[in-house]
């Protein structure tokens, strides 16, 4: 029955645009076309292609003696990089490049952060709290609307909690860094986004740049930045900007491209020049997208707080490491909670502002918007005068704090002792970890390394071709070849096996949780705060419990990756399953489908594009924590990247980082959602495959 109903139902579902979802789905998946009947038929042909390539790889693995990339085809990146490292060290306080340019940059940034910190400290805690609370209120539109009041309440609660947890001074330093980093990222992102949005050529040229900026692990470029800018605030800030600017740029470009052609034509017919059209029509129309971009930029900047403190940025990140080095997870978690609270405050505030732009209700004119803003400024000044000037209230008073460290540490100890091993029947986490390593990870790794390079390349090419035609196939093969040329073949395949293992777990758990949440709204409500916390909590904090539970090794690294990637996968899955047209569901129900049939035969097939997006995001996020995995025994590329930074060895760290980027490109291109499903004029091959199917 369903064999005939499926395609016709699918044709009725409108194409869904899968935009970035939630704080950690940064890549901006792009338009996803509806699945068409033709693409479904083409599936048979593709399966043959994949099977053929896989069989070839398998045969190669069995027959070929030497599988690794030939040693003579590698390029030694280490020597020139070591020389560069040395040159930078010897010349960095005499060469004009530094004296006339880079030093200025770092000095300006340092003084900007100092100024921001001085302002925050000068305001005192009453001033800062009032400004944050009323700022959130004004961003949500002011007045007595429930949305405005809850947003303001969130801000107030966040700041009170930060104070109560004793994190006030550190949080102010982090906020000061954030203010400067987000401003710089937003400006840079805006400029790049304008270029990419207005010119197709720039857009094409910038896309791989954005990909690289996001996937290149921060650990890999912290060291070059230290060499260029010295240690401290400046390199940390620039590293943050590199990481946080792409979402702003991507979404600005997307917003500009999406602008309603009718509105633009209207502006043109009214005689507006190109600049006028840009300023009065395209940019204002792109504002909601840009605000979403800003929101993501803020979240990503915040996620760099901890990493940046490795090179001396200070603030809450220092508190996290302080706790970790004495195995005081409670202390590290307290700082982590402060980071999460800042994230929630900023997320809710910018989201409220974005919503107001998208659904302009009554009273959102310029004059109406100015009033809450004026109230905010006035109240902040009043709080400053009353609190700081009259009563001398600066940092949060010490007496008003309490510590959550002890109960947290007790809980973690209990978990480690009781869940590690010896749980009756199921064995316990350590046993699972060992079995997973022995029966999944080791075969995966050994299998990948046994496939000869000349069979693995075509396999990547075929997968890339199926996902996105020739361009993707070439990129995927090029990325794999680059890994070989860098001389990191075996290590990269080891890392790849870990990424695949992590992806497997993430998708299993993520799809199950996402589908469950889509079917039970209550569950989704309960999950939402958990996902928020998992997404914004610095990964370093859960490294110790993870190691304690799973032992040092690849499985600890994988667990960290799963925890990090899971929220985005759950969110996108939930959204995808839920988006399925209610009338289609109703139709299937009236045909007598059980809930299980509905899920398997209607909801999942229709949500296919979103599920593919979830896979793609899962890959990107899992790769983002490969380096963190290197800190708990993941080895391979992650460890090399950490080694490079710790040892000050550019020649080891940078190539490892580049190989991670290559893996990212490879996996992104072969999991790219959507493109394959769009039957364009050049898809004759798909049609042929469809016809040849019996």
């Amino acid at each position, binding site marked *: 029955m369903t064999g005939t109903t499926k395609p016709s139902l699918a044709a009725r579902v409108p194409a869904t645009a899968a935009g970035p979802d939630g704080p950690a789905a940064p890549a901006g998946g792009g338009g996803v076309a509806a699945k068409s009947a033709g693409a479904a038929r083409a599936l048979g042909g593709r399966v043959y292609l994949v099977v053929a390539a896989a069989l070839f790889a398998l045969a190669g693995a069995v027959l070929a003696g030497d599988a690794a990339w030939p040693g003579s085809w590698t390029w030694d990146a280490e020597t020139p990089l070591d020389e560069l490292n040395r040159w930078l060290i010897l010349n960095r306080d005499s060469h004009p490049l530094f*004296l006339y340019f880079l030093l200025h940059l770092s000095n300006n940034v340092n003084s900007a952060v100092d100024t921001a910190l001085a302002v925050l400290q000068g305001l005192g805690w009453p001033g800062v709290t009032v400004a944050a609370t009323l700022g959130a209120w004004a961003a949500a539109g002011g007045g007595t609307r429930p949305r405005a009041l809850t947003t303001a309440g969130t801000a107030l609660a966040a700041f009170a909690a930060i104070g109560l947890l004793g994190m006030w001074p550190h949080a102010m330093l982090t906020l000061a860094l954030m203010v400067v980093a987000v401003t710089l990222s937003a400006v840079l992102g805006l400029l790049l986004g304008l270029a990419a949005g207005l010119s*197709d050529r720039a857009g094409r040229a910038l896309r791989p740049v954005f990909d690289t900026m996001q996937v290149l692990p921060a650990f890999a470029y912290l060291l070059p930045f230290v060499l260029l800018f010295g240690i401290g605030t400046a390199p940390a800030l620039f590293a943050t900007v590199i990481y946080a600017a792409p979402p702003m740029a991507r979404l600005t470009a997307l917003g500009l491209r999406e602008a309603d052609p009718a509105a633009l034509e209207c502006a043109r017919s009214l005689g507006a020049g190109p600049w006028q059209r840009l300023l009065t029509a395209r940019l204002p129309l792109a504002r909601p997208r840009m605000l979403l971009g800003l929101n993501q930029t803020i979240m990503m900047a915040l996620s760099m707080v901890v990493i940046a403190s*490795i*090179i001396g940025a200070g603030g809450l990140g220092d508190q996290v490491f302080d706790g970790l080095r004495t195995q005081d997870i409670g202390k590290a978690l307290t700082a982590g909670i402060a980071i999460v609270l800042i994230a929630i405050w900023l997320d809710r505030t910018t989201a409220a502002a974005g919503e107001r732009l998208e659904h302009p209700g009554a009273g959102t004119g310029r004059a109406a918007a100015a009033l809450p803003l004026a109230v905010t400024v006035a109240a902040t000044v009043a709080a400053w005068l009353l609190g700081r000037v009259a009563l001398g209230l600066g940092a949060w008073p010490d007496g008003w704090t309490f510590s959550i460290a002890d109960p947290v540490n007790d809980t973690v100890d209990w978990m480690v002792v009781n869940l590690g091993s010896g749980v009756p029947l199921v064995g316990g986490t350590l046993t699972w970890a060992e079995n997973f390593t022995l029966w999944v990870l080791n075969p995966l790794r050994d299998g990948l390394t046994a496939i000869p390079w000349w069979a693995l390349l075509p396999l990547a090419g075929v997968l890339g071709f199926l996902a996105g035609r020739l361009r993707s196939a070439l990129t995927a093969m090029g990325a794999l070849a680059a890994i070989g040329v860098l001389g990191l073949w075996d290590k990269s395949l080891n890392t790849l096996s870990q990424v695949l293992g992590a992806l497997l777990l993430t998708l299993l758990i993520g799809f199950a949780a996402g589908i469950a949440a889509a079917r039970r709204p209550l569950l989704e409500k309960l999950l939402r705060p958990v996902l928020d916390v998992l997404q914004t909590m610095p990964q370093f904090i859960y490294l110790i419990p993870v190691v304690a539970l799973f032992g*040092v090794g690849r499985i600890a690294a994988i667990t960290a990756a799963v925890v990090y990637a899971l929220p985005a996968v759950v969110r996108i899955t939930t959204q995808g399953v839920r988006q399925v047209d209610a009338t289609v569901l109703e139709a299937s129900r009236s045909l007598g489908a059980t809930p299980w049939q509905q899920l398997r035969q209607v909801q999942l097939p229709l949500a296919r594009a979103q599920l593919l997006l979830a896979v793609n995001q899962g890959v990107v996020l899992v790769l983002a924590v490969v380096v963190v995995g290197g800190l708990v025994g993941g080895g391979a590329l992650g460890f090399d990247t950490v080694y490079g930074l710790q*040892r000050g060895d550019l020649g080891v760290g940078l190539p490892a980082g580049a190989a991670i980027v290559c893996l990212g490109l490879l996996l992104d291109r072969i999991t790219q959602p959507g493109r394959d499903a769009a039957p364009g004029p050049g898809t004759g091959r798909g049609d042929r495959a469809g016809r040849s199917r019996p």
Partner: protein
Amino acid sequence: MRKRTPARRTALAAGTGVLALLALTACGAAETDRPDAGGQDGGSDNGGEGQGYDTVVIAEPNWVGAAANVAVAKHVLETELDVTVEVRQIDETLAWDGLDDGSIHAILEDWGGAPEKEELYLEEKKSVVPGGELGVVGHIGWFVPKAYADAHPEVKTWEGLNDLAEDFRTAESGDKGQLLNGDPGYTSYDKEIVRELGLDFQVVEAGSEEALISAIQRADREGTPLLTYWWTPHWLNAEVELVEVELPPYSEECYEDLSKVACAYPDVNLPKYLNADFAENGGEAAEFLKNFQWDTADQELVAQLIQGEGMEPEAAAEQWVAQNPDKVQAWLPAEG
């Protein structure tokens, strides 16, 4: 034609933007040197007068012993010499870049994690100078939990290791025994030693000191075998009893070729290092930091107060200083 105009305009705008950025930063020419006192407000009066440092920046690498050094030095500098101390949490190897450019003035305990870099700064660039010895002796070696050593006394020398290799197997080390390593920033020749001594072991990188500590605590709690790179002094030694595996004795010849090391690690009298300009013009503060010296027991006492009893570093330092006035007195620069 029409279509190209916006693109060209964009390029123009972008170009202008870049130029503006360049102009903003570069037109001011080389008006500035590296801030010589930590980039904060104090002491940017370009040295010269010999007392130019109101603020001293001390690096605090990521271990508790270092925190103990810094806490005591900071306490004495601030209470006795009236110098503001800024503590910069940063790893040892990265701290050397700070010592070079003057954004960090002193590092009080150096384990030699990045030998090439240190040579570059000390010998070639001469931007960092030795600041004397800390007095604490660092010892690196291979250790097993006491319970395991009691049950298998033959583990106490390296010759006994191969017979026991099977006990140390893990999913990560395959069919060899596992020798766990920690933070890649720390000195280690374990791979070389294993190879040169023909041991049936595989070095597994834990990747961080935190992971290493977790593994040791677990082995201790559950009585499982574990062979690990470890060192003294460390606060964990007060909590967990570890027994050292004896390696062939250290000799200088053995360390001539670092790719063929086959003996124990040398005991290091841990040195201090100062930024060259600070060492010369740092006045009393520099003088004090050169004099600062205590022994392993002192450091472990303070480290234990911070780690074991969860005291704030300032409070721990204050307590130790109050109990050891003679030692503190010896560090202070001569009056006049």
